[in-house]
């Protein structure tokens, strides 16, 4: 399968464009409708600093071209999640997120999801950084919308397996706990409808650049992150269990990649997948199934 020649990547086919659009939509909705506790300067500052950092790293590491897409995604995610009390924290988070991709690497693959790593670093470094897991409320309609949009992005980035493994195990543990405690199922249901959890599932843990390469490893990894997150949230009674869990589990990815090697993800591969199976495109691009198989071949 690996002999299938790569068609030229379509710019519009790159799932990151969709992710940027979805994150921008969520940020707009959150800022205006949900009154996110976000400082007015935080959004432009985070975006600008992330882009400048990306540009500087491009120069330092002598990359062929400046690519703003990943930096934009990290910056938008930081705006959606990170809450700060002072300017320098937002600034440092944006630098840390983008620079970590270049600095914290094993086998030329970065270890931490840039947003996740930056958030955890800031929360460890200063009390002036925090997350507001309650900020999304739990509106079922909104939850479904996010799930669909997120699913779309994850599917196109070919990492829906890790997201599904995570959410199935995490939901199972939450419902199991409530069943054991004799709580009404309305309680785990509304926890599941949390916008923060869905954002994490479909936009953070599914980041194709930091998940294991082999599909089985990804499912195991998703389940592990779910178990650790549940333990932090419901046994240690600390907030943001999923965020801490992902940061704790991320260093295991190189180990999993060694034990269960798979084909390294490339955005170019993902870009060949059509968002909507248009006939004309299908004729000249492999079907999603073919592309999946090709990408997963070791």
């Amino acid at each position: 399968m690996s002999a299938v020649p790569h068609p030229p990547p379509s710019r519009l086919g790159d799932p990151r464009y969709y992710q940027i659009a979805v994150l921008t939509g969520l940020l707009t909705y959150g800022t205006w409708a949900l009154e996110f506790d976000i400082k007015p300067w935080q959004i432009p500052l985070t975006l600008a600093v992330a882009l400048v950092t990306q540009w500087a790293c491009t120069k330092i590491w002598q990359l062929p071209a400046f690519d703003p897409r990943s930096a934009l995604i990290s910056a938008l995610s930081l705006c959606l999640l990170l809450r700060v009390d002072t300017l320098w924290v937002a600034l440092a988070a944006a630098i840390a997120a983008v620079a970590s991709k270049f600095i914290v690497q094993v086998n030329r693959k970065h270890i931490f999801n840039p947003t996740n790593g930056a958030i955890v670093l800031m929360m460890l470094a200063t009390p002036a950084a925090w997350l507001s897991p309650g900020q999304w409320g739990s509106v079922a309609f909104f939850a479904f919308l996010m799930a669909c949009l997120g699913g779309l992005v994850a599917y196109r980035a070919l990492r829906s397996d890790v997201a599904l493994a995570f959410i199935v195990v995490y939901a199972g543990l939450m419902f199991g706990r409530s069943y054991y405690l004799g709580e009404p199922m309305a309680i785990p249901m509304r926890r599941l409808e949390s916008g923060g959890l869905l954002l994490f599932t479909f936009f953070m843990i599914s980041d194709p650049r930091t998940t294991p390469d082999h599909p089985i490893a990804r499912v195991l990894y998703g389940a592990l992150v779910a178990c650790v997150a549940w333990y932090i949230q419901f046994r240690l009674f600390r907030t943001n269990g999923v965020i801490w869990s992902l940061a704790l589990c991320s260093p295991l990815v190189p180990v999993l990649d060694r034990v269960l090697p798979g084909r390294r993800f490339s955005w170019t591969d993902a870009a060949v997948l059509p968002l909507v199976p248009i006939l004309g495109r299908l004729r000249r691009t492999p079907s999603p199934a073919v592309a999946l198989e090709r990408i997963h071949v070791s």
Partner: protein
Amino acid sequence: MKRPLSLLFGLAALIVAAPAPADAFCGFFVSKADTKIFNKASKVVIARDGDRTVMTMSNDFKGEPKEFAVVVPVPTFLQKSQIHVGEQALIDHLDAFTAPRLVEYFDENPCDRRRYMEMSARAGGPMPASAAPLQDAAKRLGVTIEATYTVGEYDILILSAKESGGLATWLTQNGYKMPQGAAPVLASYLAQNMRFFVAKVNLGEQAKLGFNYLRPLQIAYESPKFMLPIRLGTLNAEGTQELFVFALTNKGRVETTNYRTVRLPSDVEIPTYVKADFGKFYTSMFSAQVKKQNMSTVFLEYAWDMAWCDPCAADPLSNDQLRKLGVFWLDGDPSTPMPAGGGVMRPRPMPRPMPGGGANNVFVTRMHVRYDGAHFPEDLVFQETGDRANFQGRYILRQAWTGNETCSEADNYRRELSVRREKEAQTLASLTGWDIADIRRRQGLAPRAAVDNRAWWERIW
């Protein structure tokens, strides 16, 4: 003898607006709500730093003390020294300090130099607390009475149980009237290894101590759980419950992690006639906001560094008072003096630091939630954030200049005034849901506002 069981946070209660500050200056009083403004309210002060928590519980039990009982799920076993009886006056003071406030400005003579005055008023208030039963052959029912204490005027039991059926039966047998559906809720707390803190009034002790009201109970414990159990309260089929949570923390604002915490609309100009009934305005506005948010959010009413206030609705609390409310991390002399003068209102919107070194590492958050079982199925879970930005519920009256002088500025002023009045009316209508026509009428501007609203061409013919 059946004792009605008063489940904490499930009691009908009320908040009485604190009395008018007696020493307001120069005769510029803002009249304010001195009646009960919220029914069925409970108040809880939570002082927390790290995993250490001191919870002060106050509710407004109004019946006979012998009929009072309170059952609170607590995360750990409590020794006698972890239980204390607090002072109601301190909760009232904290309530007054953090209450939403009405401030008043006076328009200057537009022909003259500007001057302004500001006053503040507030809504908020006090309440009493209460007690319950005794026990015997609990073991047969699988109920363990882990400890019995008498603290102040209260008899207190710390209970655990093997299963909730036994606990419900035991409570019923011992005179507690259990609401329907209590057993499964008790069961879920038991499954989490929580204990039950059960208190009733010891009439003999109460007579000896001479209190004619029920003082708030305080408990101190160490647990990672930063939560408030509300599920038992939602079983009392009395409609919605009203709860005020005052969080005292070291780092910054507190918010709920499993419900949205929303700031109430603030810093808005409203018609001056509201001065006559600020309490009614505030309760209407709160109800309208609850409806707007589909009764699914917790409201933030105040978030401020305890070292100062602006404007002050009451004196800042001294270190000693804060310590009595459970703030255990204060250094230095516990009896830092109260600010001199004891003044309450400030004539100007001027920051007011605590004289004598106020508690500069205490941040207060006042949250207000109206809830029922359908909209708030799970207990409130909190987190302390690093947010030290100040927020207060502040409503502004702007008294018009009524002079007769004439100058071009005065003409402009009078023109702008009617526009401003109309805007105030619309703000009030949108905040409270009140009828705009009625608001305009009460402003005394109805006919003119109606005429002014016509398009210019409508006024030609």
